[in-house]
């Protein structure tokens, strides 16, 4: 008698769980497609390209470049030292959702959004565009956070 409602509940929840799992699989595939395009670009720029590295991506994230705006010497100026934490735009004060994929699974899944954000943020932090290698390393690092 007690089991029946449990079965009904499980049946009701199953599609939601499936949907969430498939949404995350879709996110991972979208992110991989962006990484693949960046890999092509990196290879075209340097034939010795040997893939992306999370460790190098972490260095990109933590380095104090100080080539851009006064308030944004490093990625961490807005995103904090912890990619899983909420950040804050150092210039406008607007809260920023965590960059870490574990906390925000749809990070780095929209190619237009990704290229817009790198274009803006690299200029603000480094004072120049990021290379495809740097972008790929950064995404690879964040995908593991």
């Amino acid at each position: 008698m007690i089991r029946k409602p449990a079965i009904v509940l499980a049946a009701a929840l199953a599609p939601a769980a499936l949907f969430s799992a498939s949404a995350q699989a879709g996110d991972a595939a979208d992110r991989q497609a962006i990484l693949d395009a960046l890999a092509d670009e990196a290879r075209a720029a340097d034939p010795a390209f040997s893939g992306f590295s999370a460790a190098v991506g972490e260095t990109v994230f933590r380095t104090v470049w100080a080539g851009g705006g006064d308030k944004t010497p490093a990625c961490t100026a807005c995103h904090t030292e912890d990619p899983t934490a909420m950040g804050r735009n150092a210039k406008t004060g607007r809260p920023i959702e965590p960059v870490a994929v574990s906390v925000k699974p749809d990070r780095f899944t929209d190619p237009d959004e990704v290229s817009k954000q790198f274009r803006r943020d690299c200029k603000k932090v480094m004072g120049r565009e990021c290379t495809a290698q740097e972008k790929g390393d950064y995404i690879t690092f964040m995908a593991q956070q």
Partner: protein
Amino acid sequence: MTTQRALHIAFALSALIAAAPALADDDWIPPVTDAMTQTECGDCHMAFQPGFLPARSWAAMMDGLADHFGDDATIAPDKTAHIRDYLTANAGDRIRAEMARDYMRWVRADGVPQRITANPEFLDEHDFRQEVWDRPEVVTKSNCPACHTAADRGYYDDD
């Protein structure tokens, strides 16, 4: 008076009261209703209500996104045009809202102000000690929602 009739009148009165702040509240300005404006402007800061600046200011702002207060805020040309149209159509000199009028009366006929926070109306309402501006969540004077929690809906109560 029948109970039903009394209820009708009470309902009509409550509807009037509910509509009143939108018509004559000097702490309210019509909020941004355009989704693209909300998304693109709101990417880096609160999407400020167009009623705070005159149409010519918004036109100049949207024409100068390559150097937007020191940052490159350029977006696709079709999006720029759409947002420019929305902001200018709903600008402070195009709408009838009390708070917009309060801001517009300080703008010279040929003025093209860019900073809402430089308007005397703003300065007069925000004459705080430096400690208030130094609070970590404030960061800058243009960060309205740090204190006005319903700023995105156009409410700027003194809280």
